[in-house]
């Protein structure tokens, strides 16, 4: 059985004591880090630290080994066909910008169609909107249904207009919806489009197999999956990556530089200009180990249990509206809600008085807020270290907020 209380003991920030104790329900924004990840960082800086790719001395060789070894580890983790398909970036945002700026600027032309959705995080929408505006392409967003799912009829209608690229999220950071990436990708490919997936909210919570999904690009961030901030991954299919010009220019991404002309390194180095964040890459490797030790099947089951309890109990409180798919379907552990007469921001602040950390606002999804007809929601998100007690404290906190504003 999954023992969340034991897991929680691995996270020093959650065991600081204090009154009220911390109930951390904002992992969708950024997760906490287990001791193993912190130790990996410390170990890196106290025994390995060196720049990579260019040194012949022992530390540099060790750093290379750690860096490229983690690249292989990540490739296996998402079942890429080769470590060459793994590009390290700062995070999901940079990964998607990289695709929009290189693949996008090379392939999109005036009048072309880009398909996205109204449930996107700004990081998966704005980069495409920017490049579309720059080249004169159109961008259309798939609508959502009442229950917070993508409107597949609308999707097919947009595909019939032969978009060049389809960019959307695997899991909504507001609704918890899990989109059918595999099916949608097959349809997009049949329509001739390249598929770019925002996996920021999926990879931390479920097993992702890029070959099974058959996506062209997939992006995620270490900091949402128990790893350090400042590092993330862009997966790209070899053939697509190889066709792309570089993103940033600088050290490591070149083959030969002359004053007249520069030629580019092979993938993945071509997309990794400058000194990478080697320590954070090592930390990401430790986070993957930790998650795999727990096992994704158990993780998903545990999170669903907590989210379902939260949805059911929140919905039972008069004046509380919960958004997204219901408790009894496959969905992620993200629960957004609104309390009548109490601004979401005030709900969060009053929960904080009780030690419950949740997020309030537009969650970087303003088009979705507009579609839901709200300016903001309060969001509780669950992860491996949360327990059913945390749900109790969330519910008590919401009732407290209602009493204060009664």
């Amino acid at each position: 059985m999954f023992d969340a209380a034991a897991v929680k003991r691995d996270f020093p920030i959650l065991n600081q004591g204090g009154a009220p104790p911390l109930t951390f329900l904002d992992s969708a924004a950024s997760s906490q880090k287990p001791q193993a990840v912190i130790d990996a960082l410390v170990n890196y800086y106290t025994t390995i630290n060196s720049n990579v790719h260019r040194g012949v001395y022992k530390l540099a060789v060790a750093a290379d080994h750690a860096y490229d070894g983690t690249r292989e580890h990540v490739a296996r983790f998402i079942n890429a066909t080769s470590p060459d398909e793994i590009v390290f970036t700062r995070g999901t945002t940079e990964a998607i910008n990289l695709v929009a700026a290189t693949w996008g600027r090379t392939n999109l032309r005036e009048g072309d169609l880009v398909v996205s959705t109204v449930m996107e995080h700004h990081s998966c929408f704005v980069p495409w909107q920017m490049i579309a505006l720059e080249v004169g392409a159109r961008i259309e967003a798939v609508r959502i249904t009442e229950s917070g799912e993508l409107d597949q009829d609308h999707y097919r209608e947009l595909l019939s207009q032969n978009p060049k690229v389809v960019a959307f999220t695997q899991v909504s950071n507001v609704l918890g919806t899990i989109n059918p990436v595999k099916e949608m990708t097959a349809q997009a490919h049949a329509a001739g489009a390249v598929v770019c997936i925002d996996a920021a909210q999926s990879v931390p919570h479920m097993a992702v197999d890029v070959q099974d999904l058959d996506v062209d690009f997939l992006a995620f961030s270490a900091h949402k999956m128990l790893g350090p901030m400042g590092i993330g991954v862009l997966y790209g299919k070899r053939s697509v990556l190889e066709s792309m010009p570089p993103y940033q220019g600088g050290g490591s991404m070149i083959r030969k530089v002359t004053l007249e002309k520069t030629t580019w390194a092979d993938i993945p180095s071509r997309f990794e200009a400058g000194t990478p964040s080697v320590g954070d890459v090592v930390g990401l490797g430790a986070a993957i180990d930790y998650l795999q030790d727990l096992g994704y099947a158990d993780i998903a089951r545990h999170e669903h249990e907590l989210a379902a309890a939260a949805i059911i109990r929140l919905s039972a409180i008069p004046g509380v509206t919960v958004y997204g798919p219901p408790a009894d379907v496959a969905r992620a552990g993200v629960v957004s809600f609104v309390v009548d007469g109490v601004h979401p921001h005030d709900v969060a602040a009053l929960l904080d008085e009780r030690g419950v950390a949740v997020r309030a606002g537009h969650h970087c999804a303003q088009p979705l807020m507009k579609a839901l007809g709200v300016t903001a929601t309060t969001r509780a998100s669950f992860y491996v270290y949360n327990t059913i007690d945390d749900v109790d404290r969330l519910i008590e906190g919401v009732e407290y907020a209602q009493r204060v504003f009664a």
Partner: protein
Amino acid sequence: MDSIYRENILEHSKRPQNKGHLDPYDYAFEDTNPLCGDEVRIELRVDDSGTVTDVAFDGQGCAISQASASMLTEMILGMHVDEIKAMPKEELLEEVGIELSPARLKCALLSFNVLKASLYGKAVDEQLHS
């Protein structure tokens, strides 16, 4: 810990003063706080000497932003435009009377910034970048 939701904040946010619109008005401005989606619009009517005779605010947002806007309208009624221009933000914060984190400070000062912008003649569709 001390709650920031003291009586005066709750009172003003539940029963805001001077909420609504003026028609016609002499000064107006509105802005949004991207953090929490707060929106505040302020409208003023002044007499020939430059004294505020009527004030109204509208908008939506958290209790802090709505309460501080309500308090602010009460404070400036009867003040001269030049006095308002010279008013330091601390005066409003004292009235609000609670310790605020930097993020919530932005909520509390939204109405204050909108008020100042209106007097300095910003166009209504120009956004405050504060």
